[in-house]
Every structure is written in C-alpha cells, then in structure tokens.
C-alpha cells in the first residue's frame, strides 16, 4: 500500500528517511492515514535487513508535526458508538491507544532512530520525538517544542506523560505538562528534552552521522538498571511534596470542570511507579477517560471548531466588499475607545480617536503610551513598530478629523441620549459610504439608527473589554442595516482577528441580556439575606470569571443600574427585577458606588485592592426570621441556570440564530460555562431531561424565571439535544 502521508526513502548507506508530509494540511497532524503509514514505515525499518537506522523528519517547512487533528475527535467517537448510543469502551480504547502503541513500536524496533526536528514538534509530534532514541533540533528560534494538549482540555496520549518525566525527572516535567508550555530549541536542550541543537542546513547530515556511529537502539527506560531521574514518590520525600503541592496548585484553579490537569497529575503519579509498558497503559486509560467526557468534546467544538468556523464565515461575508478599510474614526477615548484604537492601529488602519472632552483626549494619549511601554518592557512588543502604531493614531477633541473614515465606531458612555447625540453629529461629517457602528452593549441598534440619516449604514459592533484579550464581537443588525454594511463590519472584525456572532436587535442583545441575569440573581440573593461570601465564592468556584458583587463594584453601581435598565424589555417589571433594583438603589443611596469610590459591596484598601466584604451588608439586607442559608449547590444552580434559561430564550426568540453562536457568545463574551463549551453544550452534557428536572425544582422554590423553556421540553421530548451526539463538529 503506498504511503500518502510519509515520504519514505532509504539512502545507499541503509539510512531510512521518514519524511512526514500530511497532504492538504498547512501543518502535519496525526490523521488515521498517518497512523497507517507510520505503522508501515516502522515495520519496514524493523524488518528490512538493509536498513541500519532511521531519521524521522518533516517535508513541511516549519512543522515537524503539530499533534492531533481536533476535527477528528468526532470520528473517534462515532467509530466506538454502539447502535444503542452507548460507547464501546474496548473499541474506543483501541482507537485511543493506537498512536501510543506505534510510538512504543518505534522505540523498540531494534534499530537506532533519530528525530531530526526541522519544524515545531507539538503534542503528538513531540511524542514521536520522545520515542526515538535521539533528538536533534535545527537551530531555528521559530521552532517550538512542547506538549500543549492540556490547553485544549486533553492530555498527551502517546507516552508524553511517561517519557518526558523519565527523561528529565518529575519536578521539571510536571509543570511543562500541566501548563502545556512551549519551548524554544535551546530551552528544550537545557531541560534535557532534546540532545542537540545544530545549524538547520546540517540537520540531516548530522542526523545521519549519528546513525552511522552505530549508536544504541534502546531507550534508557528499557534498561534493567534504569533509575527514574530525581526519584519518585516511593523513594524521594521531595517528590512526595511535589505532588502534595502540585495537587493543590492544580485543584485551586479548578473553577468549573478542568479534568485534563487532574488526569495528567494522576498519569504522572501512577505511571512513575510502574515499568514503561504498564505506565503507557495507565496513560492510555486516563486519556481515554478524558476523551470520553462530553465536556472535553464540547469544549473543543466551541473553542477549536466553532470559533474558526465563525471567523471563516465572517471572512466569507466580508469577501463581497472590495474597498479596503483604511481609516477609522473612534468616538470616545475611554478604555474601550483606546483599546479599539490600538487594535486598529496594530492592524495597519489609520485611526482618529475623538473625545469631546479635551482632558480625556489628553489622558488617552498618555494611557496609550503607558500601555505600549509596558508591553515593550515585557518584551511582547517591539519599540519600533509600536512607535509606528502610535503615529497612526490621531487623538483629538475635534470631530472634523473623522471625515473620510471608512468606518466609525461610537464608544462613548452607555447612555442613550449621549450616544444619539454623537451619532447624529458624526453622521453629518462623514461621507455616504461610511459605516457607523455603535459599541453599545445594550441599547437597541434600530433605536440608535434613528439618529442617523442613513440607517442602512448603521450597525452594532459590541466589542468586549479589554479589547486586546477578548475575542468576541457581538454584531447586531438593526431593522434597516444593509447587507453591505454587515459585510464591511465583518471585514473590520476579520482584520482585527476577532470572532463575531451575528445577533438580532433587542434590548441587551444576547450577551448583556443573559449576563444581566447573573447580576440580578445574585442581587436577589443578597436581598433575601443569603451570605454574600457564599454567593461570591460559589460564583467564582462555579467557573464564572468574576464574582458578581465584585463585578458590580468594578462596573460601579450606576453603570450596573443603567445596564439593568436598558436590558429590561418592554413590559418587564417583575417582582424579582424590582427586588434586585432595590438592592442597587440602596447601595446608591448609601454612596457605595463601587471600586471607584473604594466602597461598594466590598471595602477597598487605599491601593484599590479588596479589603473584605462590607460588614454593613448583613444589617442592610436582613433575612426573614425563618431564613436558613442555602447550600452551595443551590446558590450555584440559581446563578448558572438563571443564565442558561435566558440563553435558551434568546435562541427561542431568534436573538441568536444557533446553539453554536450561543455557546461562542457566552464563552468568549462573558466566560460563561467555558469548561463545558458554553450553555447549550452544558445542557447537552448534563442531559436535557436532567436539566428540566432541575429547572422544575428551581421554579417551585424560586419562581417562574426558572420555568423550563419550551425548546428544552421539545428537544427532551423528542429525545434529542442541541448538538448531535457523538460528534465534536
């Protein structure tokens, strides 16, 4: 059978060269075809007497091998799916173990093998290197080496958790695996992961020379006298301490489900006490267990399949627009405006950053400079290019300068009148072709469009703060927004490398509307007399990026109040909403506005850091006499399910157009249920019947805001779910 992913040659001296070359892929990845070819290549190396040894390298510039093919995760499961919907564990284990078995075959093939690493070797790529007898890397700083599986919620499954510690010892291997650290060739050399760094042009000749020296063809760990470098928990107290402390370091970050670091820890702990063959079996089982968890696949689907798919769709829509975006006008030089200005300048767009308040405009300039200086001092940015970026930004208090801009982004304070006012003003300055986008997080776009002479050129682009870190752009089409306007907006989003979801116009859109329920539910609990520490800690430990009261303090109570007012839909004035408003009003009247005045739900120290929860909360919001504090589970359920219900309602109301958009918006927008891949994936993970039962309980105890959405009932009734089972994509 001809190999399609490997160019296999043998030179006159009997040195086989295994050139990995997976077709139609920008980088080499491990596909089922590759496994077939790799097996074939190993058996040739082992069985052809004329072959004296093998060099494993890559035909692809820059990529030795990047590891697993995430788009294949779905196939992995469908291959092991039984007709009754259960997973055939034995079959899945065979699939999961295949690569590991091949790597073991490679290191025991009886001939010396060397990895000539001419491009980045990541995940499975590095695992191939670890199972060859010698590792030689080209002296190219662009090459990265590492086992980053943990970052996609997985773990190395082909010996990475076993060979790396056997090579460099547990103390060095553990953090690399837990953090998924990527290393340069010299860093890897210093750690002992690779054996040599050589000039790129000499890599193959040096590799061949190594083979011709007739070196060993046995791994150190297959030697009977092998001693684990640095010892294990059985013979070295400091390794015991490594695990005692390491377990806690991993556990304390476990807010939300993060089973991968845990599985890596266990694989290291148990595997290090076993001979390599048994250790590889332990690793395979943990890998398989991890891969079987529905949250692993759903997280991968959202972050690594849906996210690029959304970016691709944006590019497709944008491709209908030929005119480039050369100049952009940003109104409002606050945190959001300044962040956008930098992002656009970095993308090569000329920026005019306007703030009517000349003082704020002046501050923006020094803030931008300070931000860039900080990045330069950290080594993340180059001083020369940052200077160019800064010179591409004109900061002014004169609206006139935005004339000729291709796109305007309005990013002034979240106030309807103020926004209408600046939009009206700028609309008279810019040309007919200019798209005007509002960065409002709550105010209906069709309402704001009324301030604009050409509502078809008006659109909502809700960026998230801090712009440089947050990928999401919630894109809101107003009633009259034209397709061309949307396409231009998508072009900007693509240039900025952001991920858009397109949502329908309505108060609070998708993200702010759902997010507001998080704040509202926590305020309701405060009103009831639930311990604020309980609410804050449970929220944090449930995977919310920030505890609700700390968040309101950071937003400041006046802004939180305005968000609440704007997201309130017509006619909505529930008892619950009013109770939450009352808490906000009370805090406002007490002057406890939040972090900016150093007192809110928390007291703050002079340097702005949190001192402790304000002691007065207990006396301000007194529970009724027979009130008992709820369990942590109840608090968690209220905070999480309240948002989940709102997300599903948004899908029912066609505010969002697919569960995938809903997941992306939640995960990238407000970090909601990130560990599960978003709210819709979460519902699938726990099962819709179980979710319905939980919601019914909550509704009985806490009111009809927890009523099971129709869509959940329908799906559960027809035994289906939001995403099809067994598939990651």
């Amino acid at each position, binding site marked *: 059978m001809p190999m399609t992913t490997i160019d296999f040659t043998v030179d006159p001296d009997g040195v086989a060269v295994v050139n990995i070359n997976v077709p139609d892929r920008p980088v080499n990845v491990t596909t089922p075809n590759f496994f077939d070819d790799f097996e074939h290549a190993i058996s040739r190396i082992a069985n052809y007497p004329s072959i004296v040894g093998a060099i494993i390298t890559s035909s692809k510039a820059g990529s030795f091998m990047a590891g697993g093919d995430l788009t294949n995760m779905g196939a992995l499961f469908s291959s092991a799916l039984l007709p009754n919907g259960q997973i055939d564990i034995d079959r899945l284990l065979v699939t999961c173990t295949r690569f590991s078995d091949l790597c073991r075959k490679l290191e025991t093939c009886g001939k010396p093998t060397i990895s000539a690493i001419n491009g980045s070797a990541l995940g499975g790529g590095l695992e191939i290197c670890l199972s060859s007898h010698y590792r030689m890397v080209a002296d190219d700083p662009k090459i990265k080496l590492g086992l980053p599986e943990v970052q996609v919620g997985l773990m190395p499954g082909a010996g990475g958790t076993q060979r790396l510690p056997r090579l460099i010892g547990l103390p060095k291997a553990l953090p690399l695996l837990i953090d998924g650290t990527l290393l340069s060739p010299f860093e890897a050399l210093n750690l002992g992961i690779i054996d040599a760094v050589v000039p790129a042009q000499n890599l193959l000749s040096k590799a061949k020379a190594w083979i011709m020296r007739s070196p060993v063809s046995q791994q150190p760990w297959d030697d009977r006298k092998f001693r684990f470098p640095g010892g294990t928990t059985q013979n070295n107290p400091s390794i015991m301490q490594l695990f005692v402390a390491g377990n806690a370091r991993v556990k304390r970050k476990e807010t939300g489900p993060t089973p991968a670091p845990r599985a890596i820890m266990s694989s290291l702990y148990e595997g290090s006490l076993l001979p390599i063959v048994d250790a590889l079996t332990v690793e395979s089982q943990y890998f398989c267990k991890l891969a079987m968890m529905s949250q692993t696949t759903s997280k991968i689907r959202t972050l690594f399949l849906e996210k690029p798919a959304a970016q691709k769709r944006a590019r497709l829509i944008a491709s209908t627009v030929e005119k480039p975006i050369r100049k952009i006008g940003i109104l409002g030089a606050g945190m959001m405006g300044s962040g956008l200005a930098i992002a656009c300048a970095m993308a090569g767009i000329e920026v005019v950053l306007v703030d009517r308040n000349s003082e704020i405009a002046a501050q923006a300039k020094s803030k931008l400079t300070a931000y860039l200086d900080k990045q330069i001092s950290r080594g993340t940015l180059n001083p020369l290019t940052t200077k160019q970026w800064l010179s591409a930004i004109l900061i002014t208090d004169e609206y006139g300068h935005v004339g000729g801009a291709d796109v305007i982004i309005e990013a002034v304070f979240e106030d309807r009148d103020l926004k209408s006012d600046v939009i009206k003003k700028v609309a008279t300055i810019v040309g007919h072709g200019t798209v005007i986008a509002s960065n409002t997080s709550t105010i209906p776009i069709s309402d704001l469009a009324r301030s604009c002479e050409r509502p078809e050129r008006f659109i909502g682009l809700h960026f998230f703060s801090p712009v440089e870190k947050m990928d999401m752009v919630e894109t809101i089409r107003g009633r009259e927004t034209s397709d061309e306007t949307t396409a231009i907006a998508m072009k900007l989003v693509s240039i900025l490398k952001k991920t858009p979801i397109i949502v329908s116009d309505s108060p609070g859109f998708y993200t702010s509307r759902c997010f507001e329920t998080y704040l509202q539910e926590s305020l309701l609990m405060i009103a009831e007399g639930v311990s604020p*520490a309980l609410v804050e800690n449970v929220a944090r430990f449930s995977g919310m990026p920030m505890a609700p009261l700390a968040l309101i303090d950071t937003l400041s109570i006046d802004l939180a109040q305005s968000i609440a007012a704007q997201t309130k839909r017509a006619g909505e004035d529930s008892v619950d909403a009013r109770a939450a408003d009352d808490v906000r009003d009370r805090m406002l009247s007490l002057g406890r506005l939040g972090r900016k005045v150093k007192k809110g739900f928390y007291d703050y120290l002079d340097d702005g850091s949190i001192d402790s929860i304000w002691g007065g909360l207990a006396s301000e919001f007194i529970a009724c006499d027979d009130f008992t504090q709820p369990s942590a589970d109840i608090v968690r359920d209220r905070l999480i399910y309240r948002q989940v219900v709102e997300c599903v309602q948004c899908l029912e109301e066609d505010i969002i157009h697919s569960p995938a958009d809903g997941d992306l918006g939640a995960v990238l927008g407000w970090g909601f249920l990130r560990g599960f891949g978003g709210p819709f994936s979460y519902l699938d993970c726990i099962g819709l019947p179980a979710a319905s039962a939980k919601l019914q309980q909550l509704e009985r105890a806490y009111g009809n805001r927890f009523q099971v959405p129709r869509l959940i009932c329908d799906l559960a009734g027809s035994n289906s779910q939001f995403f099809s089972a067994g598939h990651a994509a």
Partner: protein
Amino acid sequence: MTDAFIYDSVRSPRGKGRPGGSLHAVTPLNLAAQMLRAIQSRNAIDTADLDEVVLGCSTPIGEQGAVLARTALLMADYCETVSGLHVSRFCASGLDAVNIAAAKVMSGEADFTIGGGVESMSRVPLGSDGGAWMTDPSAAFQTYFVPQGISADLLATKYHYAREALDAFAATSHAKAVAAWDEGRFKNSIVPVCDQLGRVVLEVDETIRRETNAAQIGKLEPSFASIGEADPGFDTLALMKYPEVERIIHSHHAGNSSAIVDGAAAIMIGNDIIAKKYQLRPRARFVGCASIGSEPTMMLTGPVTVTSKLLNRLGLTPDDIDIFEVNEAFASVVLHFADSLHIPMEKINPNGGAIAMGHPLGATGAILVGTALDELERTGGSKALITLCVGAGMGVATVIERV
C-alpha cells in the same frame, strides 16, 4: 462482656522533637522498650502471662516500621510468646492501641494486654510516610486535601475563634502544666528515659515554658499563611469546600498548636484473673470507646462527634464526666469542643496538654489515658473521657471509670 481494667500506666517525659532534643539520640525502639520494661518491673509481672502488646505509631516507616511493637517487646526482654501489634490512625494511634488492647480483654480473646504508643518525631519526621491521601492526585482532589494547619485555621475562622482567644488558651495550657509538674501530679506515671549507660537523659517534659504568657505568644507569626495564601494556595481548596467562609484568617502558630516531641507510653490492661494472680488492685475500668469519620477538609471536629456518639451509646451526658482530656492538637480544636458540647473549661485538660507538653503522635492517646486516670485519683473523680482529633477527618474517644 468481661470487664477490662487498667492496672498501671507509664509514660516518658516528652523531649523536643528535633535534633538537640533530649530524646533525639534515643531510638524509638529503645524508647518503647524502656516503657515496656518499666511497666513490667513496677508490677513484677511474668510477661509469659501477657497475650498482646499493642503500640500506636503514626509514621510506621524506617526505624518505626515493621511492627515496632513486636521488636520493642523482644528488646524489653518480654517472653517471646507475647505477640505484638502495631496500630496507626494518625494522632489517635495511641488511644486506638489502648482501646484494642482493652477490647481483646473485654471480648475474652485475651486476659492480659498492654496498650501504648511511641513516636520519635525528631527521627522519623511527621508526614515522611507520604501516603495516598495527600500525594495521589485522585485522593487529594476528591477529598480537597489541605494540611492540618489549614484545617485548624479554617475551624477557627468558621467558628470565630480569634487569635487572642487561641493564644490565651495556649498560655493557660503552659500555666496548668507548670502547676501540675510543681505539684507532682504526673509523678505516678512518669518514667525517666535513660541512655545506654543507664544515666537519665530526660525526666521532665521539655517544651513547657514556665514564663510564657498570652502577650508573648501573641508575637508569633502565623505558621500556615504562606502555604494557604501564596503557594501552593491551600486556602482556596478549603474555601471551595466551605464557600460560606469569605476567607481564612490564619491564626495558628507554633505557640498555640501542639509541640512536636518524642515520647512513649504504656498502659497495663487485664481482666480480674490478673488482679487475683498478682494481687493487683484495678485502678479503672473501660466503660466504652468509639470512633467516627468526619468531613476531611475541616478535619478536626471529630472529638465533638465521637464524644456525642460515645456518651449517647453509654447513656451518659457530659455532666457525668468529671474530666475531659481533649488532645490540644490546635487551640481551636479544644475551644470548639468545649463550646459545641457546652462543657466548662475547668473540666478540660486540667493539667495542661499538648500545646505545653507536646504531642508525640502515636503515643499521645495512651499518655492522655494515664493523665486522666492520675487526675481522677487525685481529685476523687469517677469518670474521664479521652478524645483526639485525627487526620483525614476522624475522631476517637474512650470513657474510663475509677473502680
């Protein structure tokens, strides 16, 4: 059921559990053997009559491993027909050893036993046996493992024991221990430890601070703030389990926690046949004993639960108990015990405890039995309850009654 009686108790003085401590050069084997030899010779018993020697030891590895009880009894020149049993339940090992030795008599399996314990913390350090609970990720994750000091601070935070209250209690422990020594209240049980030449190396508890007071103790830095708040950050794990606690206030330190020491103890237990044979008068009777499991992250509330369980089973109330010996693992454990069961402080640890005199893990339970018995005899009391908190969330208790 047969009655099990206590005929005698001995204990070593406790030496500082570090190099430089007076017992550091004494092997745990030798330390245990000296106690066994003492109890044999004080009562002139024929060790061939003994059925079992049960010794507690919390860290049974290295020189404390391989059933130290059997080796120690052989080293004490006991008859080779006596079997040895090692017991480990962390801090309660010594009390469990006594309870097992008593239970063997009560069940009729044995007529004559010794229960006791030994721990040489200066030689076999605390935690040096590792163990799956804290090192195996699967266990550490599932149980929210935190070191005991974090649990003690969590307990103090959750139940509002301020640093001042803990320090005041610690000062009292020293004051009571000083008074007890000055009045010779321990003399009945103390067996000085000797070197190879028979010279006494220690005859008093070495960690008691005669001059200390709450103000002085108040100057000590908290011991667990760094591992709790910084790296590896155990506080977060404790809060995950107890989210109602806003944050942990670190208030325990070397001065209000039990001292790390070396020590050993032995209790002679038998039925009434022994009394007749040796013309010995039973000093006390075992009324009952119990053990429980409690939430492992908070870890230290076991004494409350096990005391309730045992008293209920025996049909007793705290009022029926004259003396409570509650191991002073940490000051908060004792304060929480007293408040939870509404027991007046005067009845608890009247002669001080492990904060002043030290907690040789495997021996402490047996030491407390002897201390309680001596105090019952001195005061004319009837019943005493001995209890200890235990790692991983457990509790053990025993009630004895003077006869």
